[in-house]
């Protein structure tokens, strides 16, 4: 039987984090009362003219630069004509062949740990449509539709990938990386639950190893990564069954029903796709110029790929740690800052990925809202190294730092948590313990290593975990083995 390989392309729509809409000065805030963030321009009233929001263009260029795209010297907006009630003007101002950015790529790390480049076709700047609420259980049963134009005209970028992903995992990694970079460069809040990030999927199957493309299905407007994964898994199975039974895949747009977990053909009329694009006559072309582009480029932060490589090459972090930390800008910032106060990157990485992440998850908060500072974390780790506290005690101290933001030294002092490294005091304790427990001592002498754990546990209990564990182990061995 033929082995089929999926060929996946994604179009991601990201709303830009501007204060105002793309072509008018209405605010873009989310969740306002319906139809209160509107003006004659975004309502499409006759006689109004669009004026381009410079910040939106800058964000689009910024995204283009972050993905290594070529920024166009001459940018033109196009009018895309179609009627739909959420589109007030009867056309959408979008872009076609002279979009803001072309080329470029997103670097993903595949499951086998290799890096792979997924190329970007182009990034175009366009306006959002309004929001429709259908009066009925589904759009088909609706007897009327209600429109809210608050969202109409909000700027978004559409990032179109080449069809270069060949598994669900690659598509997921692509989306995650795209979102990470957009968050890093601050051009979109990427809140999928608010519709700030949405995705159209193109998928076809081809014979494994062939470079001929099969006929593709397009599924539009997915608003969660989970929905994208579900659609891809569903379509791969549907198309495989079709092809294996001698059928053919129709080139069509399908709609995804998340509730039923199935996609349906949208029996498209040809005319619905006759958009009759033409250059937008109400907007002047844009020529950003090399100087401005260089200025924008200079404000880009260190991007996750570069960070990841730096973590591996300069700090010797495992790829897993480097990928995880660099994938979260706030975590990476905290990591970088802690390194200014404490010199062991792997120890910092362990604590951030372990205890601190655990506390964050528990409290449903993030690295940007931590009460303690990178310097304080550095101090805590240094106290472990200096033998002032054990790792176990450090976890207790961290919990209090997390809750109150108090300096670790103050917590250790106030709660009397300082590690006992006084050899004489420990020896006295250990000698009486060993004398009182001849059985386990004999076991240990007979080669049962585990018996030592009993003694360590007793000492820790007696000192409330404050005894220096390395010293205790050494002294115990001496006390037991020395008494033959």
């Amino acid at each position, binding site marked *: 039987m033929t082995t089929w390989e999926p060929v996946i392309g994604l179009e991601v729509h990201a709303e830009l984090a501007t204060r105002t809409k793309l072509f008018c000065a209405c605010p873009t805030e989310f969740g306002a009362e319906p*139809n209160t963030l509107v003006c004659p321009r975004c309502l499409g009233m006759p006689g109004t003219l669009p004026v381009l929001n410079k*910040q*939106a263009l800058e964000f689009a260029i910024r995204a283009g630069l972050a993905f290594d795209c070529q920024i166009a010297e001459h940018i033109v907006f196009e009018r895309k004509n179609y009627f739909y009630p*959420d589109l007030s003007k009867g056309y959408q101002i979008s872009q076609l062949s002279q979009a803001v950015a072309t080329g470029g790529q997103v670097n993903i790390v595949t499951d086998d740990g290799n890096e792979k480049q997924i190329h970007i076709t182009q990034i175009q700047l366009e306006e959002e449509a309004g929001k*429709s*609420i259908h009066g009925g259980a589904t759009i088909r049963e609706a007897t009327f*539709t209600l429109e809210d134009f608050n969202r109409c005209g909000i700027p978004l970028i559409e990032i179109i990938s080449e069809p270069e992903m060949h598994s669900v995992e690659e598509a997921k990694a692509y989306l995650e990386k795209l979102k990470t970079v957009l968050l890093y460069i601050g051009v979109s809040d990427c809140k999928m639950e608010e519709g700030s990030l*949405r995705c159209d999927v193109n998928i076809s199957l081809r014979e494994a190893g062939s470079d001929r493309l099969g006929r593709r299905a397009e599924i539009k407007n997915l608003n969660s990564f989970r929905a994208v994964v579900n659609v891809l898994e569903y379509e791969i199975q549907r198309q495989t069954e079709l092809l294996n039974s001698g059928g053919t895949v129709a080139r069509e747009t399908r709609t995804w029903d998340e509730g039923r977990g199935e996609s349906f053909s*949208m029996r498209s009329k040809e005319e619905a796709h006759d958009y009759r694009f033409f250059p937008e006559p109400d907007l*002047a072309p844009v020529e950003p110029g090399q100087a401005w582009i260089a200025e924008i480029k200079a404000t880009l932060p260190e991007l996750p790929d570069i960070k990841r490589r730096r973590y591996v090459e300069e700090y010797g972090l495992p790829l897993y740690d480097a990928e995880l930390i660099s994938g979260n800008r706030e975590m990476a910032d905290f990591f970088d800052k802690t390194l200014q106060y404490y010199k062991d990157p792997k120890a910092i990485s362990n604590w951030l990925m372990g205890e601190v992440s655990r506390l964050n998850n528990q409290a449903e908060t993030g690295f940007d809202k931590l009460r303690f500072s990178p310097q304080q974390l550095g101090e805590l780790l240094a106290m472990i190294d200096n033998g002032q506290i054990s790792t176990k005690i450090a976890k207790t101290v961290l919990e209090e730092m997390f809750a109150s933001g108090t300096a670790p030294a103050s917590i250790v002092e106030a709660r009397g948590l300082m590690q006992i490294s006084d050899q004489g005091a420990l020896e006295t304790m250990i000698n009486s313990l060993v004398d009182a427990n001849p059985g386990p001592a004999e076991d240990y002498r007979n080669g049962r290593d585990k018996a030592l754990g009993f003694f360590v546990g007793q000492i820790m209990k007696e000192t409330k975990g404050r005894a220096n564990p390395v010293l205790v182990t050494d002294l115990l061995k001496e006390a037991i083995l020395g008494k033959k």
Partner: protein
Amino acid sequence: MGADGRSQVDIGHLATLARLNLKPEECAKFQEQIEDILAYVDKLSQLNVDGVEPMTTALPMINVFRDDTPHETLSRDEAMRNAPDKEGAFFKVPRIIQDGEAPDDGEGGDSNASK
């Protein structure tokens, strides 16, 4: 371009795209008018444009920008004053899908069915 030098216009298709209901006699009339207009504009193709840069606008300007500063919006009452129909805070429009028709794929399109 037809044999008589006129563009062939599918007026029925254009009317559907523009959501216009034309009577047969209007179709014939507009067909002729639009073909006249296209034939007239088609004179441009007789020009020699060798060495002329393609242009998308006759405006002698580039880079017309606005700052990202919010301005006052319309009040809802004002915004909806001319609406043919409304319900509460919303513009109300007739059902979008005719029987057996597929939903158009509007850009936003993340239509929420009301519960």
